[in-house]
């Protein structure tokens, strides 16, 4: 298995080299570009598995470049931006970027995000390519890309990062019993770096937050085995 190839498009030389080094140390093949033109040159020479794109680039900015890439390729894109406005994040994700990392970020966060995006992609291409951006279950709506959850009443439900990853794991395997080991594995990105809570605590929190009007959350405990999302998940 060859190392996944990542193209880093960043105009700040120092930051570009540091990102490249962090990726290389974690087993990625890294290519670098400082402008949009260099990016296109590099992509012509060889395709990559993922592009890390700075939003603020001299000349053509990252948002325009993202739009252009999307017209000809489905390659995963992660935005890197010094702006932390919620609108920037939303615009980036709506343009088809797969994730958005605000500066400054650490090596672990960078690698975790890159791995998460790369892991998500092949599974989706297996299921007809289209990524399930919005899913519904038992009246609840989840926007996978924006990582937002809405209750049956239409209210935003804020979850911690680990809780959302856990929910995403359940949504990925509805009506199937998931063992603790499997859940830890599926959610390890977040659990690894921001939380040492056990799966049981996270599940109980998730249940509390996904209860509504006297109804308990559609997640049941299968004694001795693990947990299961009982509701049907619909896409679109």
């Amino acid at each position, binding site marked *: 298995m060859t190392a996944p190839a990542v193209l880093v498009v960043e105009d*700040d030389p*120092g*930051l570009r080299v*540091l*990102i490249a*080094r*962090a990726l290389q140390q974690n087993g990625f093949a890294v290519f670098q570009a400082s402008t949009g033109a260099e990016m296109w040159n590099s992509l012509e020479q060889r395709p990559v598995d993922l592009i890390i794109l700075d939003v603020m680039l001299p000349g053509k900015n990252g948002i325009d470049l993202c739009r252009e890439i999307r017209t000809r390729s489905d390659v995963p894109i992660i935005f890197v931006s*010094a*702006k*932390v*406005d*919620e*609108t920037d994040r939303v615009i980036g994700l709506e343009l088809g970027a797969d994730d958005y990392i*605000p*500066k*400054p*970020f*650490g*090596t*672990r966060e*960078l690698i975790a995000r890159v791995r998460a995006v790369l892991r998500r992609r092949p599974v989706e291409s297996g299921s007809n390519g289209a990524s399930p951006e919005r899913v519904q279950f038992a009246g609840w709506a989840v926007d996978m890309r924006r990582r937002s959850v809405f*209750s049956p*009443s*239409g*209210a*935003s*439900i*804020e*979850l*911690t990062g*680990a*809780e959302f990853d856990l929910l995403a794991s359940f949504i990925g395997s509805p009506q199937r019993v998931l063992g603790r080991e499997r859940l830890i594995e599926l959610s390890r990105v977040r659990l690894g770096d*921001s*939380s*040492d*809570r056990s799966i049981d605590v996270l599940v109980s*929190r998730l249940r*509390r*937050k996904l*209860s*509504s*009007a*006297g109804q308990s959350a559609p997640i049941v405990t299968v004694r001795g085995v693990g947990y299961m999302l009982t509701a049907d998940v619909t896409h679109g």
Partner: protein
Amino acid sequence: MRVKLVPPGAVGRVLAVVALTGVIGLSLNTLVYEGTSRFSIREEEARRTSEHIVVVARMLEGEEPGRRARIVEYASTQHFKLGWFQQPISPGERSDALTQMHRQMVVWEPSLAGKDLRLHLGSPGAATEVSGSLQLSDGTWLHFRAQDLVGKWPLKLRGILIASLPMIALVIIALVTLRVILRPLGLLAEAVTRVGYGDSTILPEQGPAEFRHLIRAYNDMQSRIVTMIKDRTEALAAVGHDLRTPLARLRLSVDCVDDAEMRDTLTHDVNEMELMLDSLLTYFRGDDHPEKPSLVDVAVLVTTVVDDLQDRGFNITYSGPEHCDATLRLVEFKRAVSNLTNNAVQYGNHAAVRFTVDDSVIRIFVEDDGPGIPEADMQRVLIPFQRLDPARQRNTSGVGLGIPIAVRAIAAAGGKLILSNRPQGGLCAQIVLPRQTWPARLGNTL
């Protein structure tokens, strides 16, 4: 061309007011003094009275005493009673107020001059009655009593009142006029008071020339201030954004440091710089909200903030409903709650978040067991960049914007933040959010 009747300057206007009131006062005074005599003593009545008593007196003097009583009786009418007595009306005191009337009567009927005419004002139960007596040639007295010979008011009081009417009119006119003239000044004072509280208003230039200059100067000054603040804020925000790239470099470089202890120290410093930068940029982004209010489950939001802190190893608990929907700006409000809970876990060993809800308000209490805030500093912590006494700080980070940012976010949601020291020690930060300002689609409250 319109003819300008109103002088443009304040001095001109005040002069105009003085002149106007002078003229009005003078004319009113003239009218009133001319009218006083006419109004107070009914001249016609006085003349008729004098004629009447002169005639009756002559008749009585020409008749023998035995028939006099009958004549007196015949000569009396309902409003004018006559009588014949040996003595004058007692007590014989004369009313000064009737001196003028006395003079008028004597002028009209000179024969009254030698007859010791005495006039008296009023009698018990009839204040407007004039009575009098005059001596006949044989030393006996003719008494008479006339009703309504004077106006209802006692003469002096009436005179004073009438004389003061122009004064009252002048005061009212001057008051109204001056208020109208000075109104722009009041509006300016109000506007100046509001400067710096977000809403800058451009005042219309109105009123006297001096005021118009002042208002124009104020408007110019205000736009200069607004531009200056905007420029500086933009510059600061730009620097803030630019700082993120070197900070990102620093953070990635820190990860390459082999010494674990050194790496932790550096990470801690980078984290602190990042937090300060974040709060600065949040504060200076100010009131231009890119975020739209939306329906949010506030109870879950608060729970998640608490859960995040628990995950980071802090001792903090949540008690309250599992769900409660409200319309607000999610990111902004979450930051407010985070700032308050971060303070609570930084200053105290244990923090508790209580969430209560009734028909009209949502209350979120963030309580800690830390040192609290001295009463004298309660207002100071609401001011940006104010940090309390360094001796009280314990591993605190930030630039003193946490509470001001929270105050602004809560105010934007229509609520308020109340800080108080708990009786058992520690601080209680209470967020009060009114519910009626929100749409009625309130969700499931358990």
